[in-house]
């Protein structure tokens, strides 16, 4: 059996590490789980044979082992196979290492009383005012139950990121047709309940627009999001007009009046000025005769 000394040393160290790991695993009591997963992994990967040199090296190392040689050899081979499997997966990309998932989990002990409480929490017999059942509230504190946060920990790579193309296609497909709108209106009409009291009636009216919102907003329905300087400083729209002359004088008066008008939107004011510009453009020849 040709086994180089250096490789033998390497595998001895490896073996020692594995034994330590397995000892600690036994202490934690996770060994059963890990071994079962090992077995399943083995069963899956048995189709791929290991490198014969590695197998020979493993058997040589196992022979030098003081205790049960066969067990050591089988365990070493299992480890090797797992290494191969992980490297293959990494080559393919995206390993879902179940160990990472389980490493953070722990078996929870529940007393039967607690179980009863849990189940009764799920089934709620209370009714809301609308006649609909109250669902058990999902508090955000559940995520902090075992003192862990959602964001900490290694990334598990279980879910693939949704590509933006699929999102776009979904959006284009679901552009609302008339039938969808009608359906939505039907649902809304069927599910709405008559108001139970005056407050709800007032809420409904406010939504429809019959009742104003209090405290009264003076700019309700009028605010077009333009700042005050866009309303007042309208001189920049006078660029195309002649600098001197009665037309300029006239337009400056127009702008003065528009800037003081609180009832028009900026768009309307600009439209006014545009109209005057077009009007004077048309009358240019006429004006030049004068």
């Amino acid at each position, binding site marked *: 059996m040709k086994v180089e000394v250096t490789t033998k040393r390497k595998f001895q160290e490896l073996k020692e590490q594995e034994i330590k790991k397995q000892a600690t695993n036994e202490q934690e009591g996770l060994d059963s789980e890990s071994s079962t997963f090992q077995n399943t992994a083995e069963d899956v990967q048995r189709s791929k044979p290991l490198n014969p040199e590695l197998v020979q090296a493993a058997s040589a190392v196992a022979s030098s082992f003081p205790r049960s040689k066969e067990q050591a050899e089988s365990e070493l081979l299992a480890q090797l196979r797992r290494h191969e499997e992980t490297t293959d997966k990494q080559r393919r990309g995206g390993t879902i290492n179940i160990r990472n998932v389980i490493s953070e989990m722990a078996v929870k002990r529940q007393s039967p009383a607690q179980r009863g409480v849990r189940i009764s929490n799920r089934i709620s017999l209370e009714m809301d005012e609308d006649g609909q059942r109250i669902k058990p509230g999902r508090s955000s504190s559940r995520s902090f139950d075992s003192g862990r946060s959602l964001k900490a920990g290694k990334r598990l790579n279980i879910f693939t990121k949704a590509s933006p193309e699929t999102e776009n296609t979904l959006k284009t497909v679901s552009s609302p047709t008339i039938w969808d709108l009608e359906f939505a209106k039907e649902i809304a009409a069927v599910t709405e309940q008559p108001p139970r009291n005056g407050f709800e009636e007032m809420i409904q009216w406010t939504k429809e627009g019959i009742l104003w919102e209090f405290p009264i907003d003076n700019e309700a329905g009028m605010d077009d999001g333009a700042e005050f300087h866009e309303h007042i400083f309208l001189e920049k729209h006078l660029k195309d007009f002649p600098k001197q002359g*009665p*037309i300029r*004088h*006239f337009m400056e*008066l*127009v702008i003065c009046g528009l800037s003081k008008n609180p009832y028009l939107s900026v768009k309307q004011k600009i*439209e*006014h000025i545009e*109209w*005057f510009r077009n*009007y004077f453009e048309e*009358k240019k020849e*006429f*004006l030049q005769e*004068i």
Partner: protein
Amino acid sequence: MAASALCWALRAARQVLPSQTRGYYVDWRMLRDVKRRKLAYEYADERLRINAIRKNTILPKELQEVADKEIAALPRDSCPVRIHNRCVLTSRPRGVKRRWRLSRIVFRHFADHAQMSGIQRAMW
């Protein structure tokens, strides 16, 4: 002209479908008033601008005369002066209170049946 009148008539009388829907304007005068209001709304901006040119001491008078002709060329029903506030329910041209848009008779009818909010018979 006749075609447009026919269109308006159709719109006023609606189509005589099996369900016999009728138009909602009390009479033709009310309909004409509605027409005038719609046109006045459409031409309001233009009239305002042309009037701004007319009622002016700065621009030359020739320009103002041209503007005079332009505004006269607009449809006659587009001027707001021709709008008359008729009663909304009976189309009565006179005795109409502006706040309720109702003629005095209709107003009195509703007030006596307690269908006018906040209206009470005066007594002092």
